[in-house]
């Protein structure tokens, strides 16, 4: 006799039923799900406004069952500032990739953080411009081949990677800034906890919060999904160490 069925895993209510357009093996879907679970657990889905970027996550608004706006390339933190300043009791988050946030949107992210805007930023670092076909991003590792660094990123002529979490954490307006990875279940659980803490920072008015997530891009890296996860572990993490770069005293007291 079969045991009675019990449901152990289901779609968060803050997710729509739209299938995502992401490539097989890409960790965007994992990151989306973590955000959706956190919004649902906090009971804030119906008062959340998301800001989608330009890049692979440009259609993020199709997947979250919350109000959403879609920003010009890199401008999501400015747009989020506009929303949050006129709706301070709502939850506002941006979801941005490394081309969007660390290249064209460097001005907007730094100043939103410096102003201590009470917004949450989910930052996907997959070391390239995914949407346009895998060009070099500010986060591309030295020597890493992309379609615009075909011989490998030459730091002499193409500069060095930018470590955003380290940089953002120096700003006084920041309440919470950490880097996590999505390459295995343990780290995914840690990433979810960080995302929860980031949104808790926002709803408590404790300043700007950002979670950087090391992510895969199997299609543009030219790797299988499994090898991509290994690449994150073996090459991305050494260049972008996981850790808590800034956790304000006030948020340290918050028990989740």
């Amino acid at each position, binding site marked *: 006799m079969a045991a009675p069925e019990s449901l152990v895993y289901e779609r968060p209510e803050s997710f729509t039923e739209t299938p995502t357009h992401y490539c097989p093996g890409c960790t965007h879907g994992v990151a989306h799900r973590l955000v959706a679970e956190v919004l649902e657990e906090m009971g804030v*889905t*119906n*008062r*959340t*406004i998301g*800001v*989608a970027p330009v890049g692979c996550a*440009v*259609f993020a*608004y199709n997947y979250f*069952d*919350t*109000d*959403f*706006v*879609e*920003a*010009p390339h890199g*401008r999501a933190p*400015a*747009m*989020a*500032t*506009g*929303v*949050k*300043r*006129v*709706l301070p009791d*709502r939850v506002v988050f941006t979801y941005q990739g490394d081309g969007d946030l660390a290249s064209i949107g460097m*001005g*907007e992210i*730094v*100043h939103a953080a410096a*102003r201590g805007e009470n917004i949450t930023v989910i930052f996907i670092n997959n070391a390239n411009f995914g949407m346009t076909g895998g060009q070099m991003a500010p986060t591309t590792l030295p020597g890493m081949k992309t379609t615009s660094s075909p011989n490998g990123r030459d730091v002499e002529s193409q500069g060095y990677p930018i470590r955003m979490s380290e940089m953002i954490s120096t700003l006084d307006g920041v309440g919470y800034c950490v880097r996590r990875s999505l390459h295995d279940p343990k780290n995914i659980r840690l990433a979810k906890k960080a995302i929860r803490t980031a949104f808790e920072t926002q709803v408590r008015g404790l300043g700007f919060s950002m979670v950087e997530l090391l992510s895969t891009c199997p299609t543009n890296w030219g790797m299988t999904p499994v090898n991509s996860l290994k690449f994150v572990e073996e090459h991305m993490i050494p260049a972008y160490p996981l850790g808590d770069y800034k956790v304000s005293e006030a948020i340290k007291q918050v028990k989740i």
Partner: protein
Amino acid sequence: MAKELWKGNEAIAEAAVRAGLQAYFGYPITPQTEILEYLSRRMPELGRAFVQAESELGAINMVYGAACAGVRVMSTSSSPGVSLMMEGLSYIAGTEVPAVLVNVMRGGPGLGNIAPSQADYNQAVHGGGHGDYPRIVLAPASVQEAIDMMGLSFDLAEKYRMISMMILDGSVGQMMEPAEMPEMKPIVERNWDWATNGALNRERRILSSIYIEPAAEEVANLRLANRWKEVQANEVRYKEYFLDDAEIVVVGFGTAGRVSLSAVRAARAQGIKVGLLRPITVSPFPYEVIDQLTGQAKAFLVVEMNMGQMLSDVRLAVRGRVPVEFHGRPGGMVPFPDEILHEVQRVNGANLSVQTDPIDGWLARMAEVK
């Protein structure tokens, strides 16, 4: 309310507040900075949103966000700053959310100077940002008119879910004049059925300028085109002076129109049958009234503080039926009434052709300016 002495930029700021401005995002640039400064004090004291952005890119995207949230929102800048805002303006237009932008224009191109200019006419009226999109553009010629147009700007932007710009040259922003302020209007919670302000007790909403299917983008473009026909039918505004029996029609907007009025009065005193048409909305442009005036006028004289931008729109309305002459002072120069009077006298006495390019004659007459 009684008339008070108001500086143009501060008057614009206060008029916007009284029209129910809920959020302002800006960046310093001469000659509009007093608007930012004034609102940095005024908005917080009223508990309204104010942010000095990190750049004009930041400012216009904060405007975009607040506009999506459904509040009365504005930014102000001057020419180089407005150029930086063009990306955001295109997105705002594509998303069909209302926003107000004031451009206190200065001499250009490039860094140019901080003197009064009308050189951003084409950028405001005919484009600037990428893609097809119409926008309303108002052109005040005095501090009072700028005050009166602030409330109108918000009303039009919301009525048509469109950008409403006000373009004025730096002199209107910087001058002080007696002017009357309207009463303070209360903030109205508009609860637009499109605003992304949190899906409390309703279906969630998305605001975006993306139409990934070209056929859907075409439908969106055509919706804007049809809405623009409505604006053209209902919102054309202009002022007429001495036009009843005018044989020469001077056309000028903003300060160029105001200075032209002095010249027209002086010419009338000399018995010249001349009048002035001063467009208030340069977009929608008063093509129809110029078309009608073409029946009575023997010539038009377009006066601008640029190299002849509105000139093209006047010629489009006149359609070669009578000569259109041009007098412009570009680069931050302001014409004097007597030089415009001289132009009126010349046009009155000359045997003009419809075949010649008005710019050729103007450049020849400007040859002494070196």
